[in-house]
Structures are given as C-alpha cells and as structure tokens.
C-alpha cells in the first residue's frame, strides 16, 4: 500500500466485485488490500451462533445471588425451602481439596464470598433449577443478614484507609517505581519553577453489545464450557482449582463473541467458576446469561485514575524533571490489575523523552467492583494525563501546545521510561504532516482564539505491543499449529479468538498469502481448548504481531513440505536476542514494537447550553505494515469514537459502592448522530518481527482521541479541563466557574 492513504473509499472500490473474484485477486495483491471478512455474511444474516443462541434446553438455569453492601460480615443466609430439582450452590459446596479462588494472574478473587463481602455485587451463591421464572422467584426470597462496615470507595478513600485498611495494612494492592536520569528532587532544586497538577479519569463500562453468558455441561469425566469470551485457556486455568482438577479436564469452546474490549478477558471466569461448581453439584449442565442491567451493575470496568504530576521547568518553560504519582482504583480484588498499573506507568511519558523522570504507581484497594482490562489496559489513563498536562504547561507559557509537545518527541534510539531504547523508526513527523494538512490545523489554531466557542486540539499516543519485556517467552510461551490435509486444505490451530476485531479473517489471509492458496482452502475455527494449543490470551495487542507471526512461520514450514499428503507443524515464540528486560525491577526494553498515533479533533460549543458539536476527526496511525486496510479502518473508527465517549458522555459513577448508571438509557455511549465521518491515515512502517511487517493496533486506536477532544474543547471554552468524563453539564460548569486556560498551574 502507499505510505499514506485515506481508506474512506475502500468500500466503493470493492463494490462491484463478487466475493470469489476478490479472493482470487487477493493472492496477487499486497496483503494490505481490503478483504471481505469471512464472518460478515453469517453475522449479517443472523445465523452466527452466540452463546445465548445455542440450544441448551436440557440445561438448568442459574442466577447469581450477590452482595448488596460494599463491605461487611455475612451473619446469616436465610434460604427458602428448595423444591425438588432446585439447588443453592455456594462456597460450602467446594469439594475437599478444591480452592475458593479464581486464578486471574493473582489468585485473590474469590469464586464465592465466604464469611465477608468486599464489594457490591460479590458472588455469594447461585440458585439453580429447571424453570427460569421459579429460579428467579427463589432468588428473591433469599435473605442475607450482614454486619455492615464502613466502605472505602474512591481512590482518596482507599488511600485514606476509610473504615480501616483491608489489604496489606495500607490498602495498596500493588506498587512500582521507575526512575530515569538524575534524581528528580535534586533537579527540582535547580529549576526556575516546579508546578503540580492532578489529572483524573473515570470509570468506563465496556458495553459490548452482547452481555456475558456461559454454560457448563458435564460430559463423561470432563466439563465442557461454552462461553462468550476472549481467552478460553484463561477460563480453564482459572476455574480448575475450584474442583482441584487438571485443567485438561475442562474443555472451553468459545461461542461467537459479541464484543469484549477487555471486558471478557478475565471476567468470564467469574461466571464460569460458579457454573463449574453448580455442574459438579447437580451433575447437569447449567447456564447463566446476564441481562444488560445485571451486566452493567455487576461487571468489571476501566480503572478510574488519578495522576499527580510535579514538573520542574527552566525559565523558558522547558521541562527539566517530572515526578508522577499514578493511582488506579483497583477495587476489592487485585486480579490482573498490577499488570494494568505497570502498563500505565510505562506509558506515562507518552510519545516524549524527558530528561529526568520518577514515576510511582499505586494500585488502590477499595470496596468497589474490581476493575479489569479495557482496551488500552492502563495506558489510556496515563496517556490522557500526560497529553493534558503538556497542553497546560504550554498554555501557561503562552506556547501553542503542538509546538511545545514537538520539543520532546521521542525518536528511534531514545531512552524509554524503563531505561530501554526505542527500537523502531518513529514516524510521528510523517503522521503529523498528514493530519495537519487534512485538518487545516495551523490555520484554525490561529483563527480560533481561546474561549470563542471554536477549538481544535491534538494528541500523540502510542501503545506497546504484546506482553511486557520478555513476557511472551518467559510467561506466555505461545504455540501455534498448522495441519495440512491430503485434499490441500490447511487448518490453523491456536487459541486466539474472534471478538469483532477481525482476527479470524486476517489470520487465514496471512496463511493463504504465504502458501499461495485460496482463502477457502484455509480452515480456522473458533477455539476449543481440547483441539488447539495454547497460544496465549487474545489481549495486549499481541494476536497479530505475535501469534500472526507464528502462523506465518507455520505456513512457511508447511509450504516447504507441501508435497507430503498430511502432516502437522508447530511453531513456538522466540524473543529476539539483545533486548533485555528485568521483570523484577521493570528495567530494559518493555516493548519492541509500539503502535503510534496522532489525532486531531475540532469542536464547536454552544455558548448558551454548553453542548459540544464535533466538527471533524482526523487521525494517523502506525500499525506497521497493515494486514488489511479495511479491517484496520474499522478498528480506527471504533476505537477513536470509544475514546471520545470515555472523555465526554460516558459517565459512570460509583456511589457508596453501587454503580449509579445501570442501563443504556443512563450510560450514554456514542450513536451514529454524535460524530462526523472520520478521516484516517496510515504510515507504512514494517515491523521486523511481525507477520508481513504488522504490529498491534487494536488498543492503540483508543489511546489518544479523548485527549485531542478535551484539548479542542478546552480551547473552545477557554477553560482548563483536568478531569474526564466531561459531559455537557460539566462543560457548562467549566464555562461558568472554570479556571482560565492560561492561568498558572
């Protein structure tokens, strides 16, 4: 593909071609050329089977009974008389040798509350039985008596140990510290000025269109779990300890998954653990599907964050040192949050190299529903914080934010926040040129004075691809197999899932291209853990760059042996030499390949109502050499809009441990009317270790649009905005009482 392309017209390109012709041409064209997704027709015709579409009519229904208070001791559970065939399933049913925890990186999240509860929505038990309505009736009759304790809900309350610490004596689940250059306190003493600023971000709910659901069925000496999930192997590993059985005794089959965004990375374990125990107790298949209200009230969210910057400046406003304290609201259980916090801290320098840095991260324990993965996995919070802080520093010195930020752009060979180097070429200058030209940024910046109701803003962001450091080799150990059949078809065997991102289309495309065979000769099914090797989670923007590469290598091996009738090859991940990483000190090369992005947003604000109209969105991304322009275009559009939603309308409050927004009527995600058609650009920057030069991109495209939107909005109203989300009501408040944009920090 060309170095730059506005792919808004691809669908016009493909419109006159039949499917077969597109497929045939595909093989002779650059791999980036748009393909037709392999799942598009069955999804459009409604024949794709999501987990609630399966016929599980022989299975029992389950409903969860959950804690209604954020913190307390369970004094008594009063159950109604269970009719024959109806069951109460709780921690007491865990067999001898079994464990009451779910393995989600950490092992602190309980399968069932036992003795006490630490958050609203904590699973206490399941009511199980053949009739759905009867199960619900029985559930409503259950009375739970608590001795309530004072909860800590927000980051500040958690840090202050309100009600007494409940984790580690200080409510800090996890902590890390990074330093580069000189000691920042010493540098501060030489600075002209040292300023402090706090940037905050709120919860975000995933709103995957398909809510959570799963079914667990005993089959012989195995249990088969069907789930809407990102990571079938995670489920197996997580729930097997409940029965103290070999994970191989659990077979997980992924159903077509209606969106996930991180919300189905670990969270399905919270359904599947109790379902496994229910299937064990009853000897029958047991199914559970959440409705929307239940899903919003009782599922994981994006971590709220608070980043406190202390920045030392010389007399011209140049940054000499920066200290950042990063606080994430982890909730009651740690689960995967330490990894989220690490990624947040690694990304706090954004697309910049600063001379001296100190970063400390704190995962704060609160009596809130545990936070977990959400597209970006901790990076969006710190990237929003640094982008916003940089704008405010610039404005304080009367410098245009773009000009200020460009003083610090990181380049190939520069030092990272973990004292590694940037390995690849950083194409920010090229990307910047594309969006500046398309958006007419420079003219508009001059024309739209602060506070005149019109504003244009810009952000820079990146996303480290795959697991940190050598984690892919040391922890994940991804494997991929490819089977060649006598009839010339090949089957790709690995555990990666399709959840909307297009992976199950681009991976057959990679194999077909290497092998020089038509796409219809490549089989790639939704994973079944008994048939495929564990290739690691479908997460961390790793699937294309890591597993895609394993598929590419497997296809190369198959090609070499093509004349053999039937055989199978297996490929393993190997980390390139010469890029050390120490996981205990978080020092070295955190990521070998980053995705990079630049986003410009233009807004207009109604001076009477504070209503914001987005007039334009321009972005450019570096995802290496793209495997499919059209699929990537869809990722960009969706990620950018989700990021602006996070920064604007998506208000999710937690009041005394309860989420206040519980439906799609009061949690406001973007509609088709809210944003104009985007213009998106790409740069071609092949990544040495990715398939056909591709890198991760799915999370990157979320990471920066929120900051660009807030920059534009802030300039339009002439007020400083340091906290998101910023819905219309909040815009009004800023217009009335906010601090002027150029005021000193």
């Amino acid at each position, binding site marked *: 593909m060309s170095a730059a392309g506005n792919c808004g017209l*691809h669908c016009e390109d493909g419109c006159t071609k039949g499917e077969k012709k597109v497929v045939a041409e595909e093989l002779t064209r650059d791999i980036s050329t748009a393909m*037709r997704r392999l799942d598009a027709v069955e999804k459009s015709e409604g024949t794709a089977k999501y987990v609630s579409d399966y016929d599980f009519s022989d299975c029992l229904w389950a409903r969860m009974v959950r804690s209604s208070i954020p913190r307390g001791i369970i004094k008594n559970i009063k159950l109604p008389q269970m009719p024959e065939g109806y069951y109460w399933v709780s921690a007491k049913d865990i067999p001898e040798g079994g464990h009451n925890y779910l393995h989600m990186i950490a092992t602190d999240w309980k399968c069932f509350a036992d003795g006490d509860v630490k958050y609203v929505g904590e699973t206490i038990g399941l009511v199980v039985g053949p009739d759905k309505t009867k199960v619900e009736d029985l559930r409503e009759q259950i009375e739970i008596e608590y001795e309530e304790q004072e909860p800590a809900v927000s980051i500040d309350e958690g840090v202050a140990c309100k009600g007494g610490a409940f984790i580690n004596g200080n409510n800090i689940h996890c902590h890390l510290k990074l330093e580069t250059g000189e000691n920042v306190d010493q540098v501060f003493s030489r600075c002209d000025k040292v300023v402090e600023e706090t940037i905050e971000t709120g919860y975000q709910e995933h709103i995957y269109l398909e809510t959570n659901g799963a079914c667990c069925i005993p089959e012989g000496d195995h249990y088969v779990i069907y789930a809407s999930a990102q990571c079938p192997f995670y489920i197996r590993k997580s729930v097997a300890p409940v029965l103290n059985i070999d994970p191989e005794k659990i077979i997980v089959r992924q159903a077509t*998954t209606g969106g996930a965004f991180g919300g189905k990375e670990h969270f399905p374990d919270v359904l599947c653990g109790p379902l496994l125990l229910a299937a064990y107790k009853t000897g029958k298949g047991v199914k559970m599907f959440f409705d929307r209200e239940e899903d919003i009230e009782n599922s994981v969210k994006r971590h709220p964050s608070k980043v406190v910057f202390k920045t030392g400046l010389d007399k011209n406003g140049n940054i000499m040192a920066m200290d950042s304290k990063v606080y994430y609201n982890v909730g009651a259980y740690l689960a995967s949050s330490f990894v989220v916090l690490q990624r947040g801290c690694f990304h706090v320098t954004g697309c910049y190299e600063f001379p001296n840095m100190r970063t400390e991260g704190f995962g704060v324990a609160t009596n809130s529903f545990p936070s977990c993965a959400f597209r970006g996995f901790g990076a969006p919070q710190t990237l929003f914080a640094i982008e916003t802080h940089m704008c405010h520093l610039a404005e304080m010195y009367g410098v245009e934010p773009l000009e200020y930020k460009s003083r610090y752009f990181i380049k190939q060979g520069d030092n990272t926040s973990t004292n590694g180097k940037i390995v690849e070429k950083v194409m920010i200058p090229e990307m910047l040129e594309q969006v500046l030209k398309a958006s007419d940024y420079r003219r508009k910046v001059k024309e739209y004075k602060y506070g005149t109701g019109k504003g244009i803003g810009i952000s820079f962001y990146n996303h480290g691809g795959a697991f940190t450091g050598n984690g892919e080799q040391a922890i994940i150990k991804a494997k991929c197999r490819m089977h060649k059949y006598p009839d010339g078809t090949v089957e790709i065997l690995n555990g990666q899932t399709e959840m909307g991102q297009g992976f199950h289309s681009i991976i057959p495309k990679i194999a077909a291209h290497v092998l020089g065979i038509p796409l219809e000769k490549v089989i790639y099914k939704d994973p079944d853990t008994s048939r495929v090797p564990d290739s690691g989670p479908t997460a961390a923007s790793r699937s294309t760059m890591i597993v895609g590469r394993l598929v590419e290598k497997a296809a190369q091996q198959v090609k070499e042996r093509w004349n053999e009738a039937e055989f199978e090859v297996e490929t393993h991940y190997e980390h390139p030499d010469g890029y050390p990483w120490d996981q205990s000190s978080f020092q070295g090369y955190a990521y070998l390949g980053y995705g990079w992005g630049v986003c410009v947003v233009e807004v207009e604000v109604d001076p009477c109502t504070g209503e914001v109209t987005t007039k334009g969105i321009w972005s450019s991304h570096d995802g290496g050499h793209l495997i499919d322009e059209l699929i990537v275009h869809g990722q960009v*559009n969706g990620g950018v809009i989700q990021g602006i939603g996070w920064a604007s309308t998506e208000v999710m409050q937690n009041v005394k441990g309860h989420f206040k927004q519980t439906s799609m009527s009061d949690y406001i995600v973007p509609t088709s009317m809210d944003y104009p058609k985007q213009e998106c650009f790409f740069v071609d920057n092949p990544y040495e270790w990715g398939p056909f030069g591709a890198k991760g991109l799915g999370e990157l495209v979320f990471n920066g649009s929120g900051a660009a939107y807030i920059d534009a909005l802030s300039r339009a109203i002439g007020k400083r905005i340091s906290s998101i989300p910023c819905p219309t009501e909040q815009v009004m408040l800023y217009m009335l009482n906010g601090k002027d944009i150029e005021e000193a920090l």
Partner: protein
Amino acid sequence: METKISFTLNGKKVSLSTDPLRRLLDVLREDFGCTGVKEGCSEGECGACSVMFNNKMVTPCLIPVGAANGQDIMTIEGVSKTELGQRIVQAFADGGAVQCGYCIPGMVIAAYNLLLENPDPNEEEIRLGISGNICRCTGYDLIVESIKLAAKRGR
C-alpha cells in the same frame, strides 16, 4: 393465562398458545428459533432486536406478543432473503460494516427500513435512520458507507 395468538412471520402464518404478555422478542427466539433477533439492552435503547412489524421497524423487547396477533412480522431471517435485504447483507460484507456482529442484524433491519422508504438517502438521512441502533465496535462510519453502497447498487 394462555391465549391463542396468530401472526405472519417471515411470510408464513404461525400461531401459538402463550401468555400474551410475554415479550415478542422471547417468543421469536424461543418458540420460533429466530435467534438472529438479538437481545442487547431489554429496554428499546440499542436496537439489536429490531424487526419489521407491518413494514415498520420496532424493538420486540418492548412489545407483548399479544400485540402481534393478526400482524405481519419480518425478522432478519426473513429480511435477509428479500432482494433488498440480501443487497444490504452483501454491501455490509463488502463495505467492512461488520465487526463483532451482535448489532448487525438490527442494523440490517434499520437499513432495510430506511431504504424501503428512501431508496437513495444522503449521509445525514442514513445516520438518522440508524440512530436507534447502537454499535460499540465500528464508530458507524463503515456501516453508513455500506448503506450508501447498498443504495447505489439498487439504482
């Protein structure tokens, strides 16, 4: 209290005895196997369950099945077999409209509803036409482009 209810479903006369207050959504999925009708929000907010009811788009999560008595209902299973429905399906596939796919049957219905009334809509009319349908994956642009493509192919 069970009542006999009859209606036309995807061109065929059907009837059943059931509680007339059951949601039409559940009856379509459970009694007639129309699992292309997706439950997204249960309150008429997301449009994932959209069906055609006497040739107008409705959300059956808000309609008691009793209200369907004697009426004409088309689900995605029926709509996708019509010329217009299939043209939309193919345009969605070519135009990159589909990601996770959960909202897509409802989106196809919304596009069908729009193009029935307005075979050549402009960008704004398309955005309005699908504004009752939430998609969390695509940011809508490629859905809008795909509907334009379907309209163009119908000319």
